[in-house]
């Protein structure tokens, strides 16, 4: 579902900020018999992240705490260490990062799936929710992706933003 005006908003996006659980993962936690936890991340999204960054759009993780798994996935997705942001006070950290990096609410896109993301989603120029996000997140989102969490949300969003900005075709011709 794409709300009217979303494509216009996408043209201004310079920064994409991503919640991890339920967006890059399907929200499932796997435990081994000795209690070790794993999560299942999308690899479709690797192409999405690559595309955004190759076209000059910055990308950051924003989650309550950056785990070692998140660091590992940051490497796999090609996101620089300084853009892995962890804080339970997401809004305060966002204020700090906006000052530090010089961007505003008008420049960024936020992808979230839960009630705790609502504040961020309302501030963002463009807000996005996976198809299986909570009803609250879906009701405020400018875009609800066809993909569910962990199934290529960023891959889909990257294509949408870069097509709106007229950069997609060029990116494809570079990688194939």
């Amino acid at each position, binding site marked *: 579902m794409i709300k009217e005006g979303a494509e216009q908003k996408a043209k201004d996006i310079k920064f994409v900020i991503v919640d991890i659980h339920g967006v890059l993962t399907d929200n499932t936690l796997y435990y081994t018999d000795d209690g070790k936890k794993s*999560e299942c*991340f999308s*690899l479709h999204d*690797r192409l999405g992240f690559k595309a955004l960054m190759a076209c000059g759009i910055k990308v950051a993780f924003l989650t309550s705490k950056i785990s070692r*798994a998140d660091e590992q*996935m940051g490497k796999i997705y090609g996101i620089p260490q300084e853009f892995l942001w962890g804080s339970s006070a997401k809004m305060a950290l966002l204020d700090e990062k906006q000052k530090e990096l010089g961007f505003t609410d008008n420049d960024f896109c936020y992808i979230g799936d839960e009630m705790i993301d609502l504040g961020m989603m309302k501030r963002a120029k463009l807000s996005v929710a996976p198809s299986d996000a909570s009803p609250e997140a879906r009701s405020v989102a400018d875009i609800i992706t066809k993909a569910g969490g962990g199934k290529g949300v960023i891959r889909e969003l990257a294509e949408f933003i870069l097509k709106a900005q007229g950069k997609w075709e060029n990116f494809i011709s570079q990688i194939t």
Partner: protein
Amino acid sequence: MSFEKDLEIAKEKARKVKLFVHDIHGVLTPNVIFCDVEGQRRYSFWHMDGFGDLSLTANGIKIAYLDTTSIDEEGLFRAKELKLDKFYYRVTDKISKLEQLKQEYNLTNEEVGCLGAEITDLKLMKTVGFAVATSDAIDEVKTVAHYITKAPGGRGAMREVCEFILNAIGKWEEWVEKVTKMGYK
């Protein structure tokens, strides 16, 4: 979007295949990675896709893995497990690798088949004689494909391709007979 394919044309094309190539992620895996709290990575493969690859080689059709996006050596492990000798790791240019394989085996484009899912497979799909898309491939890949599997990547797509090709060349029944008696490895 619907993607109607002519099965008779697909069979005709499948009959000519002597070499079948495919990637790892999105084709042999569902394009996901399991990452545990310590950063250890795991990948899932579909048991019966191995049967697909091995059944084709047993019936005289060569298999080559053209991996583009391995993170660790996940595809290499799988190829070794299946005792496949043609594994190309982190290939950036699939088309020149294809040219190399065609020369080695003395084949034309018509005699090559491939299974694809992403943008990175598009050129290959347009080049080879028999192009197959997984059910969860992107629309562009499905559009150029001659056949689309019912199964998504990493959940039986390669098993399905194998059955389709062996059926097309009339060897499936015989093969089923054989593996039910003796196994396939």
